[in-house]
Every structure is written in structure tokens, then in C-alpha cells.
């Protein structure tokens, strides 16, 4: 059966809702196959019929347990991304929010029907019954700001209020599908936007990558390194499973910065995945070698004194042009010729470089 998640123009909020709903459907139908398809104006979720739901569904309690995922979702409430560092008052506030999400989700029999047909979501700028304010950590666009003409007076700007069901789904999706990491003093959250994904495969891939090291020099290095790891994971699945068909569009990146009292949105962007995807589609074997080199470069670039290596590579991956390639190649060459120890890190073969340059725009 198809479920429809209509897009609102807030990319992270929309993807989180789609992932959140898909995870709920998977729980309700005892882990049956659930897929998400991006059709442009909405996400289509192919899940179980309501008749297929298990008689007395019980959600896995770990889904609503206090974790780092929930802390990074409710960063403006808890004021720390790590659960063990929460102060007692912040801990109470976060737990209250999680319980509110849980209560809304448990009423699935009431709200699930509204996702069986496409419907436009109403977003308000003032508080109303049945609406809740979207935290800035879930989507940068939701941060307080002036969204209408102002002629006089000072105001911090208004928040965004979304229907409580969409609020709960987005928070739930954010807590379980977003990878968070420090990024040069800020806190970054990363979420792959799906084209077509099977939820099980996606969750397995995310679980594998969650423990891997990320180059945390800046938001761009975190995003580029995660993008490489993610597409390398997709490549591995493709080479081992003949029926693997998950596809991704891009990576939503958002950074939050600590202002001394609270967390504020710092930056939000879309990191394109086209370039690494093209490399994989062109040659599975060579792309594996290239990703391995880049993974080493990001690791090596995280060491003090080698930062330019990682920064230039991240810039190249975000925008693969002649200028950015040359910039990275110069830095890489200088580092590898001036220090013998560096030679074993990130060494290219001629064929790999030919492949890398194939999709570089002039």
C-alpha cells in the first residue's frame, strides 16, 4: 500500500518525515519490507496494508530511549548533543519532548489514514491548536527569522509551526536517521536524501557507518567524508547483492553553533552526491580504490599540519571542477614529495586519476 508524504520545501524536514513514517510502518507490520521513493513533489512510501498490521503492535522501547540521536534532534532543548552530559533539568525537558512524540505516534490508528492520499501541509507562523513549533535543529529554515515585511519595531522573528503529527514524525525520523558529528567547533547533522531506498538496507548501511571516523575539520570535510563513506557503502552492497537498488540524491548538511547560552543554526546546505555516484556507476572496482585513497586522505588530513589536504579534497568533492582539482592536486603533491612518511597515504595509480578526471568540469 502506498503512503504519501508531501514535500513542503524544507528538505531536511521532508526527508525526516519520510524516514520516520517508513520506520513506524516497519514496526507496525513486524519488520516487513518498506521502501521510500522520491517522486519530486512527494515521497511515496510503499508499506504494508493496515490489515497486515500485527494485532497489538508494540514499538521497540529503544526507539524512544534517551540517546545521542534524540539529544542532537532536540539540541536547542537539551543544550548538549551527548546524552551523558545532560544536566538534570535539560534531561527532564528532553524526556518530556520524547514522551510527547511517543504519545502522538502511538495514536497511529487515527492519523495514519491521512497519509493514504496526498495532502498539502499547512505551516503557520503563530501557535495554533494541533500545531507545534519545529526545532531549528531539525531544519535550518525553521529557525527564528523575519519571514514577512517589517516596517518598525524590533522582534527576533517568528518560529515555524507545523501540524503535530508531522512534527512528531520529523523528530522521530531525525533521531534515528541523522548522523551527527562535530565540525570545526560547530555541530553538524547529515542526512542522505533518498531517490529510492529499502528501509532495511538503509538502516544496515547507516549502522555500519555510524561508528566510522569522520574528518571533523569543517562542515564541508564532514559532509564530503560522509558522502564518500556512504557511496562506498552503496558500492559494496551493489557488488555483493545483484538485486541492490538503493539510490540517493544528495546529502543535507546542517550545522549548529553554540552562542554561549544556546545552540543556534549556523549553516545549511545540500552536498551533491552526483560525482561519487558517477564514479561508482562507471567502474565499481576502480571507484573502490579511489574511495580508499580519499578515505586515507581525510584521515591523514585530520592530523595537525595536514589540514589543507582534507580541506582541498572536500572542496573538490563538493564542486568537481578543474580549479578545485588542481588546488587539491598541488597540495597533495607537495605533501607527498616533502615527507617520505606521507607517501604511503593517498597514492594514486594512473588509471584511477584518469577515472577521477573523467567527470571533472572545466
Amino acid at each position, binding site marked *: 500500500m502506498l503512503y504519501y508524504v508531501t514535500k513542503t520545501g524544507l528538505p531536511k524536514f521532508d526527508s525526516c518525515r519520510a524516514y520516520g513514517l517508513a520506520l513506524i510502518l516497519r514496526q507496525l507490520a513486524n519488520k516487513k519490507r518498506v521502501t521510500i521513493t522520491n517522486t519530486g513533489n512527494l515521497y511515496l512510501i510503499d508499506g504494508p496494508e493496515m490489515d497486515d498490521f500485527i494485532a497489538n503492535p508494540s514499538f521497540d522501547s529503544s526507539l524512544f530511549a534517551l540517546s545521542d540521536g534524540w539529544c542532537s534532534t532536540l539540541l536547542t532543548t537539551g543544550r548538549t548533543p551527548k546524552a551523558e552530559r545532560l544536566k538534570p533539568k535539560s534531561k527532564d525537558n528532553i524526556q518530556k519532548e520524547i514522551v510527547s512524540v511517543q504519545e502522538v505516534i502511538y495514536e497511529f490508528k487515527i492519523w495514519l489514514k491521512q497519509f493514504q492520499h496526498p495532502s498539502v501541509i499547512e505551516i503557520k507562523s503563530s501557535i495554533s491548536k494541533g500545531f507545534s513549533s519545529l526545532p531549528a535543529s531539525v531544519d535550518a529554515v525553521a529557525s527564528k527569522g523575519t519571514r514577512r515585511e517589517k516596517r518598525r519595531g524590533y522582534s527576533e522573528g517568528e518560529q515555524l509551526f507545523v501540524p503535530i503529527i508531522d512534527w512528531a514524525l520529523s523528530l522521530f525520523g531525525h533521531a534515528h536517521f541523522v548522523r551527527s558529528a562535530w565540525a570545526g567547533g560547530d555541530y553538524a547533522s547529515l542526512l542522505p536524501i533518498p531517490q529510492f531506498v529499502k528501509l532495511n538496507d538503509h538502516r544496515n548501511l547507516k549502522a555500519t557507518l555510524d561508528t566510522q571516523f569522520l574528518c571533523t575539520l569543517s562542515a564541508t570535510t564532514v559532509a564530503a567524508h560522509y558522502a564518500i563513506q556512504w557511496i562506498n557503502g552503496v558500492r559494496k552492497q551493489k557488488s555483493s547483492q545483484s538485486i541492490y537498488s538503493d539510490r540517493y540524491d544528495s546529502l543535507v548538511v546542517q550545522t549548529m553553533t553554540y552562542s554561549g547560552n544556546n545552540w543556534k543554526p549556523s549553516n545549511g546546505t545540500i552536498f551533491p552526491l552526483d560525482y561519487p555516484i558517477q564514479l561508482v556507476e562507471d567502474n565499481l572496482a576502480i571507484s573502490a580504490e579511489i574511495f580508499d585513497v580519499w578515505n586515507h586522505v581525510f584521515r591523514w588530513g585530520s592530523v595537525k599540519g595536514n589540514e589543507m589536504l582534507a580541506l582541498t579534497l572536500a572542496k573538490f568533492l563538493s564542486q568537481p571542477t*578543474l*580549479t578545485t*582539482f*588542481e588546488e587539491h*592536486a*598541488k597540495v*597533495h*603533491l*607537495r605533501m*607527498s*614529495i616533502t615527507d617520505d612518511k606521507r*607517501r604511503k597515504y593517498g*597514492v*594514486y*595509480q*594512473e588509471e584511477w*586519476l*584518469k*577515472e577521477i*578526471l*573523467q567527470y*571533472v568540469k*572545466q
Partner: protein
Amino acid sequence: MSNNELQLSAVFTNPGVRAFGQALRYALRDDDQSPDYASLVELEYVETKQGFAEVIKKFLRRYKSQVNRRDKDKKVSFVPNQTDLEALMQLADELGDIRPIRAALIAHALVYTPKKQTETETTDNQGAK
């Protein structure tokens, strides 16, 4: 596709670029003698076709003296020949832009070559004049 839109990978595989890129790699990774950083710096900042020709001329002179010193130690090294030089300059003429060639040469210098291969590689060793 016009020459100006020539793919960077096609520039990279051009025989002239390949030969000079390989020579640049050996010149920079010469552990026994001093690596030729001067040519690298000159190459990085060259913008015009005339400037490029001058940089290549200087590079060849330095590289040949590096090779001659190596020959005394009975190590045979690779030297780009006249055909390679002609192919490189013809490509520069066709493109009308030095940047892709510059990037491709630096990319060739990045290629990893085991030390043994550098020392044993032989060519017809005519050398560009």
C-alpha cells in the same frame, strides 16, 4: 565537442602530457639528488602559452642534467623525446588554455611509482632538443 571543451581525462591521456608528467614525477621524487622544486613552482604559476613553452624548456634542461648525473651512477632514466614535446605543444595550441595541461601534468606527478620502476625504466632516450 570543440577543442576548448576537450575532456580533462583526454588531456591527461595525451602522449605528450603523459611523457612530461612522468618526467616531472621522476624529477620531483629523486631521493638521491635534490628534487626539482623550481620547475614545479614555475609550472604552478604559468598562465600563457609562451610562458608555458619557456617553463617546459627550463624543465627539460634541468631534467636532462638530473638524468646525466643519474647516468653516471649507471641508472638509466626516462627522458621525453621530440615527438612527446611536439604532442604537448600541439595540445597547448589546440586548447588555447594552459590550465588543463598544467593540472594534468601535476596529476601525473601524483601517480605512485615504486622506486625500482623509476630506476629501471628505459626508453629510446633520444631526448627532446
